[in-house]
């Protein structure tokens, strides 16, 4: 039998199953309100994120362990593999932190990556119209979750931004779910070198200074207090006793900076204690601003992988296109072929413009701009210039920027200069070029290559058709300006 025939046969499964599982994919679910989703989807969403958070609120831990205990083959499940109907879900309770949404009250907001969280935070600083476009982008479904105006986003950010979280060595952020309905936020950290090893942390939104005894009393569960001498940030640490010694998943209660925290992991007890003792404790807001900035995480569900534009006029038109009427805008992106890059809405243009705006655009009197290319997946920008002394239209100079906010400049630069024969070049304290190296490659004398750090970015620069001294002189004649200055010139 052919695979396609099998797939065709699967197309004939029952309607109930197609509907039931239509919304499991993060592509579909991201940011959707639970009340917007079909019943089956709600159940599955509960499976994903609510379980841990729900139970923090004081439900019986034995019941929870029974629910969460994986059967064979489900050892790594974060969530109960039982029928969702069996789950105990608390009635939503009013929380002082719950925002007054302008439309549908938010229930759950999911950030599939720290990049998505950062972009959401950056969007809250956009102009109102640009924020509205951000919401309308097919990439984002926040609007469906009660985020209608910037104030809604700000409330979400204020709620999340102040919550405490440990920075765990060897673990990376995987996703974050804000659950207003259970008054908690759930973060999953996964090991960056051991597949399947994870630590899930559910943090109560409402502050609580209760002590260990109160937790034990509230949960009515069998909890063992663990020593916290080496864990000064933790008010207490309670481990739930498992009914099954072979159960690889452990549950802990703690309180960090006046927020009750429920922790679930498949790491061993000793490993976790060691990890927590060496952890730094910061807020989610600080985490977003400082951790993993060098990770070049492509935006989830982003259909924009690449963008290129030839000529300054075209770039100027592109950047200002969101000011057009909707119909003109659609015609513009279609005619110019921008839809080929996945650009569909004004928000997509704003998204690209925001990235270009971070770039130090090279500009020099003797060089005219030819084109720019942006590789969204690699976080790389290429710009080409024509030298007035060269043939018109020739690509005499190229800058390729990476690193900066999209990667680790130091690593990129070190990689290049440590593996090649390069000469350092002094640029002077006032130069916009912080570090500069020239490649010594006598076999390719017609191509002069430089590696540099410019405004925090790593830059690969090449000149063709210029002598070595002309190339160096030309490079040092470049100034580096912002996008707006570049297109205004």
């Amino acid at each position, binding site marked *: 039998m052919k695979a396609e025939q099998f797939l065709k046969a699967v197309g004939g499964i029952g309607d109930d199953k197609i509907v039931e*599982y239509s919304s*499991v994919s993060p592509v579909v679910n991201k940011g959707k309100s639970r009340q917007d989703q079909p019943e089956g989807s709600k*159940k599955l969403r509960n499976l994903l994120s609510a379980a841990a958070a729900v139970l923090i609120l004081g439900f019986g831990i034995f019941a929870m362990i029974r629910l969460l205990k994986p059967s064979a*083959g*489900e050892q790594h499940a974060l969530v109960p593999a039982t029928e969702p109907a069996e789950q105990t879900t608390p009635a939503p309770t009013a929380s002082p932190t719950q925002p007054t949404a302008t439309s549908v009250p938010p229930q759950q907001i999911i950030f599939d990556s720290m990049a998505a969280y950062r972009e959401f935070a950056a969007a809250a600083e956009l102009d109102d119209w640009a924020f509205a476009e951000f919401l309308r982008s*097919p990439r984002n479904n926040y609007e469906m979750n009660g985020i209608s105006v910037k104030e809604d986003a700000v409330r979400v950010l204020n709620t999340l931004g102040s919550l405490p979280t440990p920075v765990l060595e060897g673990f990376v952020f995987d996703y974050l779910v804000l659950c207003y309905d259970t008054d908690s936020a759930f973060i999953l950290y996964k090991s960056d070198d051991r597949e399947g090893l994870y630590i899930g942390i559910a943090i109560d939104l409402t502050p609580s200074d209760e002590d260990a005894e109160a937790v034990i009393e509230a949960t009515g569960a069998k909890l063992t207090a663990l020593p916290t001498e080496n864990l000064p940030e933790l008010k207490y640490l309670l481990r739930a006793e498992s009914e099954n010694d072979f159960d690889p998943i452990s549950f802990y209660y703690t309180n960090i900076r006046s927020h009750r925290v429920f922790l679930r992991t498949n790491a061993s007890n000793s490993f976790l204690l060691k990890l927590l003792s060496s952890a730094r404790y910061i807020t989610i807001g600080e985490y977003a601003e400082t951790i993993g900035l060098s990770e070049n995480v492509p935006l989830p569900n982003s*259909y924009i992988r690449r963008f290129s534009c030839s000529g300054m006029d075209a770039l100027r038109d592109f950047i200002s296109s969101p000011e057009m009427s909707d119909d003109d805008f659609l015609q513009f992106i279609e005619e110019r072929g921008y*839809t*080929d890059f996945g650009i569909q809405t004004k928000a997509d243009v704003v998204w690209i413009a925001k990235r270009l705006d971070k770039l130090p655009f090279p500009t020099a009197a003797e060089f005219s701009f030819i084109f720019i290319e942006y590789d969204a997946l690699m976080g790389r920008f290429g710009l080409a210039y024509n030298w007035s002394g060269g043939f018109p239209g020739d690509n005499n100079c190229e800058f390729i920027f990476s690193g900066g906010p999209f990667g680790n400049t130091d690593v990129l630069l070190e990689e290049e200069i440590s593996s090649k024969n390069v000469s350092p070049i002094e640029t002077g304290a006032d130069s916009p070029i912080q570090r500069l190296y020239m490649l010594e490659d006598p076999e390719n004398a017609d191509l002069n290559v430089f590696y540099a750090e410019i405004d925090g970015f790593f830059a690969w620069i090449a000149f063709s058709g210029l002598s070595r001294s002309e190339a160096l002189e030309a490079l040092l004649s470049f100034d580096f300006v912002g996008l707006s200055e570049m297109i205004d010139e």
Partner: protein
Amino acid sequence: MDDEKIIDLFFERSEQAITEISKKYGGVFMNVAMNVLGNRSDADECLNDAYLGLWNAIPPARPDPLLAFACRIVRNKSLDRYRSKGFRSERTGCEECIDELENYLSSGESIENEIGEKRLSECINSFLDLRNEVDRMIFVRRFFYMDTCRDIAKASGLSSGAVRTRLSRIKADLKSYLDEKGIEI
């Protein structure tokens, strides 16, 4: 807007029907088309074809549930387009599925007639009814919606390894189940 109202709009031959169904289920449809085709412009075209297909089918059809009916159309259009396109720049969820199935399915005879296909569908459906919720979800997401294992893992909270392990077990069980029913795949 609820499904009945959308269907009423189709019956009234109001173009608003397309707007409303797209507003309500456009994300699900796009997900299916992207999983199969891996390319936004192809997926968009496919969705346009699917909307035209819906426009032509309703009336006379009054599907319930509308989502399943429309999803099938989108999926079939996507698979048609997938077959007609030789080159794809990106590996799609559909291609992953096909690779996975190539090793799973025997190279024996194909089921040629429609009755055979229908029976296979019914058997797969009844097999799924016997599985637990998680298995059903994984199977449907993988082979109907053609999500990648990674996406399923992320959405379900299972690890990718656990999803693959489960899929492998589900497929083995399905094969035995179909064997018992006299269907060789």
